[in-house]
């Protein structure tokens, strides 16, 4: 846990007035507010930093304490205890062994989203009155990884976000990268502000068989040369089982067949499905026997 320079975060001088702090805060907040930077975790983090800096610098008492201890903030409580003991006639306790080592600047993801530094100095934060209605709680983001098959069926999933278990229904047809919002499931609001929201991004893994484009699915069906030339039948995998297709004689490689309604379910439209597009490829036989080669030669001479 490292010391945080709140003045630097708000880009103000140590002698900045309350009015300067307020102006700097608003300017920064306009740049990094989550409403203006949807789905941008970096901006969200910056916004938390700015909020915290404002929380300290706009409150004369907190600012005084912060300025007083500065980089020696880790001594603050010990120093107070020692002073009180000295006043009561007790002996010196000394500072003991304190770690001044660096460490990364880290915001806790717990309630209020204050940094460890802030909570060490001021306790777990509750913002002081700062205006009309305070800020709403932090929005949380989470990722939910699904296979293509899972995304094709409406089902329930349990997500753990900040130690809280949430049971959500995943509607069939969600798209890769799609974000859904669960209102009020984010961080707690401060100073009377509403709770934040939880944004869940669906990540759908690549499927070895099907490729998905919107609601349509693409699948490749390799045909042996003889079926391609003479026609026949081909069993194709679909999402809900197998279908038998009749292959017309003389089918060309790369020919496509569209199976209506055999594709992916359409999001939130029960009973509607995209199409399955089957692309035929033709496998040319290799490692021919002598006899087979002779027959192909014969075919060539006939054509």
């Amino acid at each position, binding site marked *: 846990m490292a010391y945080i320079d709140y003045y630097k975060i708000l880009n103000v001088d140590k002698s900045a007035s309350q009015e300067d702090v307020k102006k700097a805060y608003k300017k920064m907040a306009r740049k990094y*507010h989550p409403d203006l930077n949807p789905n941008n975790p970096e901006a969200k983090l910056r916004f938390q930093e700015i909020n915290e800096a404002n929380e300290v610098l706009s409150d004369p008492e907190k600012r005084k304490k912060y300025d007083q201890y500065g980089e020696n903030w880790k001594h603050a409580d010990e120093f107070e205890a020692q002073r009180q003991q000295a006043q009561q006639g007790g002996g010196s306790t000394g500072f003991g062994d304190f770690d001044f080592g660096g460490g990364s600047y880290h915001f806790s993801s717990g309630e209020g989203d204050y940094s460890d530094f802030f909570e060490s100095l001021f306790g777990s934060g509750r913002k002081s009155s700062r*205006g*009309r209605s305070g*800020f709403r709680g932090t929005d949380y983001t989470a990722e939910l990884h699904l296979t293509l098959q899972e995304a094709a069926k409406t089902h329930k999933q349990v997500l753990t976000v900040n130690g809280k278990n949430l049971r959500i229904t995943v509607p069939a047809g969600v*798209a*890769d990268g799609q974000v859904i919002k669960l209102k009020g499931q984010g961080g707690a609001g401060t100073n009377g502000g509403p709770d934040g929201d939880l944004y869940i991004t669906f990540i759908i893994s690549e499927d070895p068989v099907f490729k998905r*484009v*919107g609601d349509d699915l*693409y699948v490749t069906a390799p045909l042996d040369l003889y079926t391609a030339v003479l026609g026949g039948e081909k069993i194709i995998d679909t999402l809900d089982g197998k279908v038998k297709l009749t292959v017309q004689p003389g089918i060309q490689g790369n020919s496509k067949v569209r199976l209506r309604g055999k594709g992916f379910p359409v999001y939130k439209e029960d009973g509607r499905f995209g199409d399955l*597009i089957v692309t035929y490829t033709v496998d040319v036989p290799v490692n021919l026997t002598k006899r087979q080669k002779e027959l192909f030669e014969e075919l060539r001479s006939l054509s």
Partner: protein
Amino acid sequence: MQTDLIIVSEYCRQSEIEPSFVSLLEEYGLIELNEVDGEQYLPTSQLNEVEKYTRMYYDLSINIEGIDAIHHLLSRIDELQHEITTLRNRLRLFDGDEP
């Protein structure tokens, strides 16, 4: 289909905002209000938007012209993001050998 409506004056009283601000949002085409017997109503489907614009206006001191511009830019970003996702999906079709 049923639409839930909230009386604008009641909403403003509860959220401590000026009714003129909600009217301004409607005037700029940022939200749509319903009017029944002279009383204005806000569809609940627009609540999120109103809350967002309220934060911009009151917390971030962005005026209505700024909010209007931000609304257009965010919509454009959203469209572009959608286009990127669609193109990325199409590009996948050309990756590898299939289909």
